[in-house]
């Protein structure tokens, strides 16, 4: 089977739907990386044929596309995207043995065996690079705790802001539980719609509730609107974002000040050893260059490179089948893809635990005089607690 | 005396006096229903011309073909043409036709029900440039139909007859050269029928408006018209001056209700074969 000189990988992207805001960066990251890999010998001579399909965040469309891809039996891997479609495809990819690297970081995707009582469906073929939504939020909470201590806030209050929707809901319970554990007072979550709008009503409620730390689980326009509205209302709260909700574009558009957000990779200008390679890939790549990439682009690159090295392992250990590639993901520990040192966090996947990394960088960004300024303020190393697998 | 209309008269001398000339038109609905099959007729300037015919003969279709309203019913003139005042107006947009001086009183009145009578009248003057005279013309209409003035509510709540008056009044408001009237007496009480015909005559006499009148009340129509056409199955089958038509035996029988003496409807029991001109 490994005789074929190319293998097929499907890639679901959302360039026109509600999450296009970030997919527009993540998708090109994958594409540029795969092109780079192909230009440089592919998987030991096998090129990766990547097809990006814009499914506009519509689950049925994603499934139809998936079926088209699998119908000829050639697909060996899937670079997925959103929460809805990734969850919908869990049993498909498990049955078809197609390893999937999604950009949905829902906690329960990290449970390959169904060990957590809350897991409804084990996800043996699902991977993602980066901390899970729950872990990222836990890191935010942990930072908030130290921050509160530093600032001398007594009895700090924490609130979750987000729509009643699978994606913002993903870390809600897990994060609240940990916040309570850390001694923060957890207020009732406040629902903020995913679509942008005037959110002064919500901001008034936030202000009234006396929250000190607010975790915004939405992304894009919704976050921008919320920050603008709350600025008008004048709520004195530290806003913390989800990994998709924090980038220089959001800060620029919202005019945020002291905005806290997690990342799992350096920023574009950072001088980590592997960043030269990333920038080279970008320069040589064919994707749209009208906008400076965000850190989402870099996670896309990492996702592609983990896939690449797992494939290399598979090719050397029995051939490029989905099952082998999956085993390739378990082959290394504290794994950083070659050439991307300092770019991708060292990650470990095991058959029982698909949390690649639990290390979260905490950043603070502000718009000062029309310039976005971001600094990394801390790194949170969360413990790999067993009760947090799949949660 | 009577002419069969298969050979359209082309008296060159009269050419100038002919306001409307429909020349051998064919009308198709929905791309497959052929309704008019080579219909020709002429209306002289300043005359009242009556167009009579059975239900479904195509009278309303003819009027819609002239005014251009056919289009909005998925109908089309596929052959022949219509000349108004020397200009070809077939398949033209209806508003252009109205501007050229043709008004239509549509079948079933078609007043704008959720506007008042006054607003309906104002709307009738939509194409007019001389804003100053509009108010006078509204008064004129009121003088013709005094009861319209009393009704200030929505036109949709007027009774059938009142709506008919409004429709005629509305057509007058455009100060047209030619009014196409589709069954103006329908649903009117005998008194009002007389009134309406009186008004049609008055319009014609006082303002020199030319009228093409489609009517079922043949006796009335022929009494005020100077010329008449009889249609059947999409064609003109008979035409002549009103006087000639009034004397025609068939017309007497089928349109005027017997020759002189009143017929008793009660005794018509047996199936009666219709005489046709085809």
């Amino acid at each position, binding site marked *: 089977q490994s005789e074929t000189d190319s293998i097929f990988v499907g890639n679901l992207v959302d360039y*026109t739907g509600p999450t*296009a805001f970030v997919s527009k960066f993540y998708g090109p990251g994958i594409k540029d990386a795969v092109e780079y890999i192909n230009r440089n010998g592919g998987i030991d001579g096998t090129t990766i044929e990547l097809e990006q399909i814009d499914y506009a965040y519509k689950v049925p469309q994603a499934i139809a596309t998936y079926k088209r891809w699998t119908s000829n039996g050639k697909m060996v891997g899937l670079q997925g995207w959103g929460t809805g479609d990734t969850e919908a495809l869990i049993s498909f990819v498990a049955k078809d043995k197609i390893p999937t690297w999604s950009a949905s970081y829902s906690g329960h995707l990290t449970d390959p065996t169904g060990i957590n009582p809350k897991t409804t469906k084990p996800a043996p073929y699902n991977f993602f690079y980066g901390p899970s939504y729950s872990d990222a939020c836990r890191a935010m909470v942990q930072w908030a705790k130290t921050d509160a201590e530093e600032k001398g806030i007594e009895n700090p209050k924490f609130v979750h802001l987000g729509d009643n929707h699978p994606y913002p809901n993903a870390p809600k319970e897990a994060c609240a539980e940990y916040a309570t554990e850390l001694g923060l007072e957890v207020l009732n979550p406040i629902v903020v719609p995913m679509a942008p709008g005037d959110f002064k009503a*919500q901001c*008034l409620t936030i202000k009234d509730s006396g929250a000190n730390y607010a975790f915004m689980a939405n992304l894009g326009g919704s976050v*921008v*609107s919320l920050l603008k509205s709350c600025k008008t209302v004048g709520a004195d709260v530290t806003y913390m974002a989800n990994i998709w909700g924090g980038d220089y574009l959001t800060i620029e558009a919202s005019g945020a000040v002291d905005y806290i957000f997690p990342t799992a990779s350096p920023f574009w200008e950072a001088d980590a050893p592997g960043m030269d390679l990333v920038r080279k890939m970008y320069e040589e790549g064919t994707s749209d260059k009208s906008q400076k990439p965000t850190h989402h682009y870099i996670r896309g690159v990492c996702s592609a490179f983990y896939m690449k090295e797992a494939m290399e392992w598979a090719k050397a250990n029995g051939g490029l089948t989905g099952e082998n590639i999956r085993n390739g993901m378990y082959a290394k520990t504290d794994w950083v893809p070659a050439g991307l040192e300092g770019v991708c966090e060292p990650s470990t996947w095991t058959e029982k635990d698909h949390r690649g990394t639990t290390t979260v960088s905490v950043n603070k960004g502000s718009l000062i005089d029309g310039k976005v300024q971001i600094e990394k303020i801390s790194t949170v190393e969360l413990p790999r607690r067993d009760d947090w697998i799949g949660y | 005396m009577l002419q069969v209309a298969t050979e359209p008269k082309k008296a060159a001398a009269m050419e100038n006096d002919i306001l409307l000339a429909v020349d051998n038109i064919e009308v198709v609905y929905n791309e497959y229903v052929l309704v008019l099959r080579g219909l020709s007729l002429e209306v002289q300037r300043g005359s009242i011309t009556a167009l009579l015919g059975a239900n479904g003969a195509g009278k309303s279709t003819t009027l819609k073909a002239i005014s251009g309203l056919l289009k909005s019913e998925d109908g089309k003139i596929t052959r022949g043409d219509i000349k108004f005042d020397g200009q070809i107006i077939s398949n033209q947009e*209806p508003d252009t036709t109205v501007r050229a001086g043709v008004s239509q009183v549509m079948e079933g009145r*078609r*007043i704008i029900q959720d506007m008042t009578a006054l607003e309906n009248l104002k709307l009738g003057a939509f194409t007019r440039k001389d804003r100053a005279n509009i108010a006078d013309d509204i008064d004129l209409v009121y003088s013709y139909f005094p009861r319209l003035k009393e009704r200030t509510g929505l036109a*949709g709540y007027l009774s059938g007859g009142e709506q008919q008056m409004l429709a005629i009044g509305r057509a007058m408001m455009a100060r047209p050269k030619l009014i196409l009237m589709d069954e103006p007496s329908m649903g009117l009480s005998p008194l009002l029928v007389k009134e309406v015909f009186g008004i049609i005559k008055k319009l014609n006499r006082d303002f020199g408006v030319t009228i093409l009148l489609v009517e079922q009340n043949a006796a009335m129509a022929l009494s005020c018209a100077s010329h008449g056409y009889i249609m059947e199955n999409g064609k003109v089958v008979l035409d002549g001056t009103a006087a000639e038509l009034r004397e025609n035996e068939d017309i007497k029988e089928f349109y005027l209700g017997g020759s002189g003496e009143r017929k008793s409807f009660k005794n018509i029991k047996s199936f009666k074969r219709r005489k046709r001109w085809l």
Partner: protein
Amino acid sequence: MNWFLLTQLLANGLIVGMLYGVVAMCFVLIYKSTQVVNFAQGEFLVLGAWVCLAMVVKAGLPFYVAFPFTLVFMTIFGILIQTVILRPLIGEPIISIIMVTIALSIIMQSVLNWTFGNSSASFPQIFPVENVSLFGLQVETAYIMSLVLSFFVMALFYAFFQYSKYGLAMRATAYDQQAAQSLGVSVGQVFAMSWAISAVVSGIAGIIIGIVSGVSSSLAVIGIKVFPAVIVGGLDSIVGAIVGGVIIGLLENFAEFVDGQYLQWGNLYTIAPFYVLIIILVIKPYGLFGTRDIERI
């Protein structure tokens, strides 16, 4: 009971509601003259906002220049949409035309995303004071503008429909296209006019919303969001649009209050208007100010 929060929320609702009212008016205008519900309304707003933003940010024009240019642009756009896309459909079933506006929204959404990107962007500061205090509540200056605007536009529309010749023609066309045509009304022209007016007002509303919430293509959902306002006021009532907008604005904020303080239900804010909408409709099937159909036989 937290009176302070409640009054703040209600004041906010009143102000936001006015803006809903303006957007609702754009719907009403189209409906009143063409019987069509414009599902691309949201995109019209976003278009206006993006075009103005592009002129301000990219071309560096001052706002007071960009603003009128945007309105000119929207006028042309409205006419173009009507002549190219909607004119051939005159006289066709309304539902098909509504479908066309849906397709139009798909196209516009893509074109907007393509040309202006998927990210959010903000207007630079436009008014010397960004916020003013109203009933002890901080309110964006843009909203004050919209307040003035909504009354102005409302009065204008009202007079237009009631007294002007074209206003009458629009109402007549909506009621019975064929009859209007028979009176010399050019249906195409009237429709072009109403689309142009609606596009202009949408443009203005879009800019205000953009200033307040940031411009992004997903702002288009506001088009759907004001449906309750349109319906509560009555589909064909200009005054109703404003009243409906205010009611929905107040309601949202009141729901937020009840939810946050007592129920903890979640998104009552988004959903409450729809419950109330149904209740109002069952009591008043044509909204508060809509004209009822004449049901004579």
